[in-house]
């Protein structure tokens, strides 16, 4: 079964047609990178997958998005339940002003889990999965704000992993970080794909090439090309894609 299956998706901000007939399928445990010039609709598409766009007034969608076969825009779908399945990591690290532990436990708690042992186990495991354990194990009760930007971003990833999502969405997760932290995040993504399906928006072509299995190139709300990353970066089908990735664009 496909993990993500977007069919004929059209999206509008009021009158503005932001996404045009997008069809995109993602298999389990793959990393898909979305690239394209600014304003082409990458973030919009990403936020469609956990219905984060619902928060914006006057938006409208047609077509369907299936996550593990379930239509997430069907009536009766509980958005908060969906968002547990489809985690999200944002551009700027945004840990809550709580302790490191509580940050990771947050998702569990708001989802009604109160079993202490379970929470503790899950938190530790998530922090480990986010390759952060060694750096924070002695200060789980310290404020998350005391961490560096790169550590904060990994904490945010740990926080997302704690609720055991099937899909992890990342919108330019490293664009606010320095090269060293960026490299760590990229490594982490590479590790995580063993257990999760990941979709990442990035402005950094090299990043897309390094971390992803497949790459989708968006332009003016259309998905121009979607193929194996190596294909896109060595021999894209579309001239528009080639122009973009070789920097001949515009």
């Amino acid at each position, binding site marked *: 079964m496909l993990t993500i299956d977007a069919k004929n998706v059209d999206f509008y901000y009021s009158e503005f047609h932001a996404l045009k007939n997008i069809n995109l399928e993602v298999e389990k445990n793959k990393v898909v990178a979305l690239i394209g010039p600014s304003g082409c609709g990458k973030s919009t598409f990403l936020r469609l997958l956990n219905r984060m766009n619902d928060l914006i007034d006057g938006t409208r969608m047609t077509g369907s998005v299936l996550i593990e076969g379930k239509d997430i825009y069907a009536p009766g779908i509980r958005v908060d339940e969906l968002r547990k399945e489809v985690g999200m990591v944002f551009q700027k690290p945004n840990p809550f002003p709580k302790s490191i532990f509580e940050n990771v436990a947050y998702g569990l708690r708001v989802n009604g889990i109160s079993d202490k042992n379970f929470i503790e186990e899950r938190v530790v495991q998530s922090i480990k999965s986010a390759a952060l354990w060694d750096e924070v194990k002695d200060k789980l009760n310290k404020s998350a704000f005391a961490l560096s930007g790169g550590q904060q971003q990994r904490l945010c990833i740990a926080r997302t992993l704690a609720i055991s999502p099937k899909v992890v969405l990342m919108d330019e997760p490293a664009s606010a970080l320095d090269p060293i932290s960026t490299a760590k995040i990229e490594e982490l993504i590479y590790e995580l794909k063993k257990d999760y399906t990941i979709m990442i928006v990035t402005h950094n*072509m*090299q990043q897309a*090439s390094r971390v992803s299995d497949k790459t989708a190139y968006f332009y003016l709300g259309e998905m121009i090309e979607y193929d194996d990353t190596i294909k896109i*970066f*060595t*021999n*894209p089908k579309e001239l528009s894609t*080639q122009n973009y*990735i*070789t*920097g*001949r664009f515009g």
Partner: protein
Amino acid sequence: MRHLEQEINSLRQDIIEMWRMTISQVYNAGEAILSFDKDLAMQVSMRERKIDAFELKIDSECENIIALHQPVAIDLRLVLAVLKINSNLERIADFAYGISRILLANPSLILDAELITDSKLNSMIQQVNKMLAQGLEAFETEKPQIAAAIFSEDYQVDEINANVSRKIAEYIKKNPERAYECLQLMGVFRKLERIGDHCSNIAEEIFFFTDAKILKHTDKKL
């Protein structure tokens, strides 16, 4: 024009230049051997160092482009193709030099007209000259179909080469005292064969560059 494009253009100019020099080396070496022109052979021999230097230059251009500009897609394929074409060309030029060395090292290498005709040396030389020119044309015009012709031509070169051993052996049997010269001549054929081979490799790289197809070690029926 963009900086990377400029670099790539100049790389392209350089490899074409290298190509032209190589073509002229091979042509001259062929002429020299056919007309037993030692001066020409000397010329070829002296040009060798320049080609070597040019190879290094192109090599480092390619490396710099990769290290500094992170080319992708068509740009990357061009650079990688040039990298390989470059070493093939150098090799070819090397063989031209080898041929001229043979001529210069064997003042007594006076070849029997009959043997020459019989062994098809002339047509083999023409053939590789043609292949080299075709390669360059295919590269310059980015038309892989032109390169495609090279594969079948190389086949003919190989054929000539396959028969030449026998022809020369027969000749030796008749003229054992000329065995050494014949062995030297044999070397010329071997070198021409290798040039043909390298032309094939170059054709493969042209396909890789233009169409991202990898033809190496496949039969080249297109």
